[in-house]
């Protein structure tokens, strides 16, 4: 049987190659799912941990055990340290994670210590840190361990008198006015209820080493006002004196880079278990893992939703090609049947043939899927492939089952048409030809219209629920995947409806012109009508491919562009820098006076060497009260700007306000007491230009009473303004998300400072395109060490592009489009090649009848216009329609928050041109191939055949 099958395959090698391509693509596309999912999840974990590290400024994976031991429970530092280490090691062993670092801190809650040189008494704690001198430098004096080497007279004297040597941090020294040689005396109760004195002499000052790595999770100053002792002294004091409870802390830092999608749940379960069992254990990354688990489901679902249409398309392709092969082999099957070969055996023959092709396809599909996944992971936008790091997307064993699935599906869809044909005998075949004229099932029962109505209803329903959907997404809820499938359903149904309508159209045109046309035209139309069923497949295929391509392009473009715009809008500029300002407070009776001293703004001039084209001060306060009449609106945004600098540096799309925002900036520039307000505020209180409003700010010391209230005059009303988001979301008491309207006031910077005194501002910077954030960061680090945050628009946009959701969208859309385009071209080509070959005899007859080659080509062109071209056109139409109807809805998934920049559908001409070019190129290639086929046709044979 195998040689027979091999021969069969060889005989129709072109079609079988198509099938092979189809199965490879099917397997590859299915294999993308596990690999992309796992890669995305790994990236998500990595992102979440990095975000936590950035936010909290500490190692993002620390398991801490904090115990309080009585002196009876405490044996010694060494013993306790050993026990803590064992506990930490067990955690790591259970988690199968390497321990990156370990820190052990021991402290006694100190008492009031009298000192020799300083104030009479102060509260000081006693502490011990394991490996202290390995991770800390003695910057002055000597360490407690080397107290004997101290040359300080006071130290020597105190040691001779039996004082315990200790070291302190620089901050403890500064804050408490301590010096090396200072003698601290504690009064403690001894076990026998008598009181005793403990003397400690400061032998040195220590500071954390710069290369201490992750060791200083608990900083030297975290246990406040602590003097660090030798272990032996710590033990001795505990042994001999009843000095209260001892706090011991084990901070264990496992290697979080080992956490991935596979073990995240294990980690989470284990950590939940140990924290539940022992309330003294705390884990700083449980929230991160919980957050990951919530997003994991969403990512899987979205990815799945993106897979379905393409997989459906591929299966359709397989079905179509397989159908074409079987169509050609109908006689063969009938003959086999007539010769007594059972139906089952026939099916088995074809199943085996399909299995061979699907098997080869699935095997090749796995590496192809790997490559496609890497390709998808490297996108930064729709069809925008980059060479960025995609190492998190790696080969997955789960690709094999998916490849197996592709194999089964491939076999199924390739074999399915045989089931119907296998029951036909030679006699039945004639009837089959007649039955080709029959109306298809879907057309007969208006399934296309029904599907269209269903998708339309779903669309309507989703729009109706869009607010709830947004809130659910903002609250961290999942996305209904049907929302993505609905668009595919809509495209499919539209394609079918088009098919129906185009059939009507062709028939109508045919009837109108059948008596007037020349033979070529007549034949062409006759061919179109007769081959409608056959051609229907390729038409639907074309429509779906093109429509999905158009829609995906536009959706991806819309999401990418809107996200980019929103990031740029929210940030307001290319770079925003916030510096830590020193707050000076002075107590004046019951009142606490405060002030800020503005750091030298000129230091930022250094940025000009690194591509900054401009910079400005922008004061932003998000706790401003707005007072209109007797009403007070709390918690609004107040911005103080230098209008001209701001206009030059900040970014805002020109058309988001009723007039260009520079008009408002200029109005503000002219009026020192002017205020630009947001339109939502103007609407609520019917404010107009020239009206007066009051606003009040709160100082850093109190948020109860505003420290100043001033009056301003409305000089401009804007819908959008750089950095202003009008809607804020908060988690309500019920746990749901609540919307809160925020209002904006923009005033002159100089006036704001004058009215409210100097408070910290952000520095907004505009950068040249080639400015390097790393270099800028490095330069500023040297010049301005107290920078709190530095936000680069480019980095935030890139970070967003790298986010799992957007990466999936861009990647899957891009790869899906390429796949669909590929099969579309292949399918189209195959269809026409076969059609031409089928009609080789006909062409011979036409030629024999005297039809010129030109007329035949013309005939072919007419056919193309009414089939392929119309379908292509329709594909674009359906794509455009889907874009209009679905883009805004689907964008909610990515941009669920209400924003001053409403979601705008981005339709870029280049995208369409690119697609048209690709399609046109494909068609042109096909057409040339077809033309060549016809030209190379052995006309003599054809004529002869025609004559026969």
């Amino acid at each position, binding site marked *: 049987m195998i040689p027979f099958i091999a021969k069969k395959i060889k005989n129709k090698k072109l079609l079988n190659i198509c099938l092979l391509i189809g199965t490879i693509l099917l397997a590859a596309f299915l294999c993308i799912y596990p690999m992309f999912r796992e890669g995305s999840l790994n990236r998500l974990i990595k992102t979440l941990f990095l975000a936590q590290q950035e936010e909290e400024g500490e190692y993002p994976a620390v398991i801490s055990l904090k115990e309080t031991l009585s002196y009876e429970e405490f044996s010694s530092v060494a013993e306790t340290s050993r026990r803590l280490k064992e506990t930490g090691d067990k955690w790591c062993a259970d988690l199968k994670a390497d321990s990156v670092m370990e820190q052990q801190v021991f402290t006694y809650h100190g008492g009031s210590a009298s000192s020799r040189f300083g104030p009479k008494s102060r509260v000081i704690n006693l502490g011990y840190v394991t490996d202290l001198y390995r991770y800390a430098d003695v910057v002055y004096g000597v360490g407690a361990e080397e107290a004997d080497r101290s040359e300080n007279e006071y130290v020597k004297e105190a040691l001779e008198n039996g004082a315990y040597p200790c070291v302190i941090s620089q901050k403890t020294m500064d804050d408490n006015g301590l010096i090396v040689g200072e003698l601290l005396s504690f009064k403690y109760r001894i076990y026998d209820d008598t009181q005793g004195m403990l003397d400690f002499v400061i032998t040195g000052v220590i500071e954390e080493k710069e290369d201490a790595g992750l060791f200083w999770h608990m900083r030297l100053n975290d246990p406040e006002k602590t003097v660090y002792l030798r272990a032996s002294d710590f033990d001795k004091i505990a042994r001999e004196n009843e000095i209260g409870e001892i706090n011991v802390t084990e901070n264990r830092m496992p290697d979080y880079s080992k956490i991935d999608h596979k073990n995240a749940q294990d980690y989470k379960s284990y950590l939940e278990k140990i924290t539940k069992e022992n309330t003294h254990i705390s884990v700083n990354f449980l929230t991160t893992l919980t957050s990951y688990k919530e997003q994991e489901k969403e990512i899987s679902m979205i990815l799945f939703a993106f897979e379905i249409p393409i997989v459906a398309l591929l299966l359709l392709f397989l079905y179509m090609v397989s159908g074409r092969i079987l169509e050609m082999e109908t006689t063969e099957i009938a003959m086999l049947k007539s010769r007594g070969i059972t139906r089952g055996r026939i099916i088995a023959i074809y199943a085996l043939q399909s299995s061979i092709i699907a098997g080869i396809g699935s095997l090749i599909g796995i590496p192809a899927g790997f490559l496609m996944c890497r390709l998808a992971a490297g996108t930064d936008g729709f069809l925008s492939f980059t060479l960025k790091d995609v190492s998190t997307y790696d080969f997955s064993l789960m690709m094999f089952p998916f490849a197996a699935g592709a194999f089964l599906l491939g076999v199924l869809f390739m074999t399915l048409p045989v089931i119907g044909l296998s029951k036909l005998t030679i006699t039945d075949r004639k009837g089959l030809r007649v039955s080709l004229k029959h109306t298809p099932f879907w057309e007969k029962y208006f399934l296309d219209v029904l599907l269209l109505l269903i998708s339309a209803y779903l669309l309507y329903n989703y729009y109706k629920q869009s607010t709830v959907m947004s809130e659910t997404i903002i609250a961290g809820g999942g996305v209904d995947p049907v929302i993505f499938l609905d668009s595919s359903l809509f495209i499919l149904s539209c394609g079918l409806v088009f098919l129906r309508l185009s059939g009507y159209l062709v028939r109508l045109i045919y009837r109108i012109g059948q008596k007037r046309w020349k033979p070529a035209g007549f034949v062409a139309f006759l061919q179109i009508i007769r081959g409608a069923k056959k051609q229907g497949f390729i038409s639907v295929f074309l429509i779906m491919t093109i429509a999905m391509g158009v829609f995906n392009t536009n959706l991806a473009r819309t999401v990418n562009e809107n996200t980019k715009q929103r990031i740029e809008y929210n940030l307001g500029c290319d770079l925003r820098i916030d510096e830590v300002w020193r707050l*000076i407070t002075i107590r004046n009776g019951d009142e606490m006076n405060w002030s800020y001293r503005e750091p*030298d703004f*000129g230091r930022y001039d250094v940025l000009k060497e690194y591509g900054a084209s401009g910079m400005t001060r922008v004061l932003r306060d998000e706790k401003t009260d707005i007072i209109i009449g007797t009403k007070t609106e709390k918690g609004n945004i107040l911005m103080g700007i230098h209008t*001209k600098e701001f206009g030059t540096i900040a970014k805002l799309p020109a058309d988001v306000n009723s007039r*260009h925002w*520079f008009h408002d900036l200029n109005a503000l*520039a002219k009026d020192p007491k002017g205020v630009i307000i947001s339109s939502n505020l103007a609407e609520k209180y019917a404010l107009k230009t020239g009206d007066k409003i009051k606003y009040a700010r709160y100082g850093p010391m109190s948020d109860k009473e505003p420290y100043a209230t001033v009056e301003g005059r409305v000089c401009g009303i804007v819908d959008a303004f750089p950095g202003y988001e009008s809607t804020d979301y908060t988690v309500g008491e019920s746990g749901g998300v609540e919307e809160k309207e925020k209002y904006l006031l923009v005033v*002159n910077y100089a006036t704001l*400072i*004058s009215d409210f005194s100097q408070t910290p501002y952000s520095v907004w910077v505009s950068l040249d395109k080639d400015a390097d954030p790393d270099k800028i960061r490095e330069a500023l680090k040297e010049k301005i060490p107290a920078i709190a945050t530095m936000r680069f628009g480019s980095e935030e946009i890139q970070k967003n592009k790298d986010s799992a959701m957007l990466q999936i969208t861009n990647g899957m859309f891009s790869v899906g489009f390429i796949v669909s385009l590929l099969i579309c071209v292949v399918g189209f080509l195959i269809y026409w090649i076969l059609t031409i070959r089928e009609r080789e005899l006909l062409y011979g007859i036409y030629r024999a009848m005297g039809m010129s080659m030109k007329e035949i080509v013309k005939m072919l062109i007419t056919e193309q216009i009414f089939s392929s071209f119309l379908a292509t056109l329709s594909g674009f139409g359906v794509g455009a329609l889907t874009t209009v109807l679905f883009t805004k809805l689907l964008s909610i998934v990515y941009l669920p928050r209400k924003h001053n920049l409403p979601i705008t559908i981005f339709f870029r001409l280049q995208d369409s041109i690119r697609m048209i070019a690709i399609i046109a190129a494909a068609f042109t290639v096909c057409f040339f191939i077809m033309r060549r086929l016809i030209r190379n046709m052995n006309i003599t044979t054809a004529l002869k055949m025609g004559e026969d």
Partner: protein
Amino acid sequence: MRSRHAQFNRIVLAGLIAALLSGCAKPVEIPVLEDPVAVNVAYRPVEKRYVGKYSVAVGNVVPVEYCHFYRKVTTLKEICCDVGQYVEEGDVLASADEKKLKEELQDLAAERALTVSLHDAGLGLYALNQDLVDLDKKSCVNVEDFKGAAECENRLNLEKENYVYDEKLYEYMLKQYDRKIADISKDIEECTLKASHSGYVTYIKDTSKDNVAKINEAVVIIADPSETYIEVPDMNVDNYLYRNYEMKYAMIGKEEVPVEEYEYTGDESVYAIAQDSYPNIRFKTVSDQGLKVGDSVVLFFYNKKHQKELCVGVDSVNSDDGGSYVYVRGENGEKEKRYFTNGPSDDLYVTVIDGLHEGEEVYYVQEAASPARYKEYTVSRTDYVQELETAEIRQAQTLNTAYFAPCSGTVEEVFAESGKEVKKGDVLMVIDSGGGRSAISELENEKKRALSEFEKKINSLDQEAYDLNAQIKVLTLETANYHLCEPEYRFQTEKMKDQAKIAVIEKQLAQIEYDAATQKYNRLLSRIRENNDGKGKISIVAKDDGIVSAVYVKKGTLVKENEENHLLLSCSKAVPDKIAVLTAKAITLPITGKKLGAAAVGTSVSIVNSKDGTAYEGTCICNAWNAKSYAFTEDEKARLSTVSMEEKNNGRIIVQMDLKDFTDQADIRSCRAFVRTLALKDAIVLPGDLVYTEKIQGGNKTREYVWKLIGGEPVKQYVTIGTEFGIGNGQETVILSGVEEGDLLADELNVQ
């Protein structure tokens, strides 16, 4: 040709596509961004100025004042001068009530005279008594009673000793009387206060409620306008902080004139501090500046000696590891970072030692927004006068007499009425003392009893003398008839003769004592009978002409002698024609709320008739502010005199002016008085809205600035204004330092 055609087609096609893509949309008009009018950054030149901590005070030029006071608590009888009056040295200013002193002197003189009379009259008694004892001795010797003779000898010695003692006691008593009489005579003499210097009376004690001058309490103050000094209100020896400041000067017009303290001596200061009463600090200019009473000067106190040094504002200065730096405006307007060596600094400025040059423009950032729209204002100098309205104005009542209850009793009649004129001697009130009648009766009974006893004594002595003479006669007759020559008889006769002589002397002494007692009773009776109708009713009569200013009791009121609460009434002496007086509550300075007290002597005062707006000019001639004290040296001793506390927290000034325009009390009451609290010559006065205030970082203190136009740009310039020191008001601000005549300032225009 063909390719050209193709190129043309391509251009047309591209144009069409471009038109299709962009031409349909309405172009968005993008306006050119304008510079904001409100900015808070600018450039300021490096310039020379004083840098360092300094304080400012405003002083008034006042005349030197001389206090006149009593050294012991004294009840005033009369003040013989009035405020504004010019008195010559030696003129009587006031006198005390000397009646009691004189009565005391009279009693003492009578007692002394009695003592002398009794002594003189009793001189013969000693010899007679000695003679008697000597006769007893002789008698004893005669009868050979030697023991008795020895006793007699002892008695003789004792008598002799007693006589010597009595004589010494007599001498001592005379001395005592003489000393007391001399003291009282001196007190009587000192009851009269005489002017120690010629000058104008600027203060007299208010005696409307109290006519008792306390120890050292100023009764009259005389000011000599030919001697002046600068006095700073409320700056006294206790709160004066600038003694050790190295640089002190007065800004008189444009001139900085060094000043020094008009020092109190160590004793004066110590004495003042010991008394917890602090005289004001006085200053004098090192050179004569022609200052006159009523002028004001601004005083500056620098803790260190300063010279104007090159400096930049603290709001320009930044620092990093390289040191302090500023941004200097470069030639092309760009900012040039410039390190410089800084020296001492204060809240506003940092001195430049090296690295910057005068006139270089330095960038600064500050909180205040520069004025957006303004017109130019040129600074000029002008005389500045500040007038503050007083709280109250009323007719002067400078010379007052208070009448206190002379005895305990019940008010029977009140003839005095508030506001009514009274003449000296008019009965103002009658008090039924009740006890007066019995006192007279008692005295008269005493007198009678003394007479009766005197008569008894005289009769007894006469009888004794008669008996003795009779016995002497008998003995003389017996001796002659019977020739009794026994020494015993002779001794007996001699003794009787001596005893008869003693009786005569005792009679003389009794007579002297009786006469003295009679005189004493007569004096007491006459004192009780003064203003007493003999029925115990005491009349209070007017001591002087005047107007009853207040009556504090009514018929039936129980009064008690010598109790302060029982002030009966007070009368004021008629106001001299040319003195109108207003009493003001403490003048409170605007903005600061600081109490100035009252205006300095010599200050002009305007009195405006509220009805017709007519203004009348006068001069302050009296400044009575609570508890003002004066320290000085007199008879080489430190003295301290204080002005008695008047109404709490109130001051009183008296203004001399032409009274003819004020017809009655009502006119004065409807007037408003404006005291010229300040008169600065060539001062810089700016409209109030040109001066801005900002809060100093980290505290509640504020500082002021103006926008000075330098190179056409408003530059923030800190100034010292007078408001903190009570100079200026919301409309006008006096600039003490910071801007100069001719400077251009930005006068901000209000934008509606």
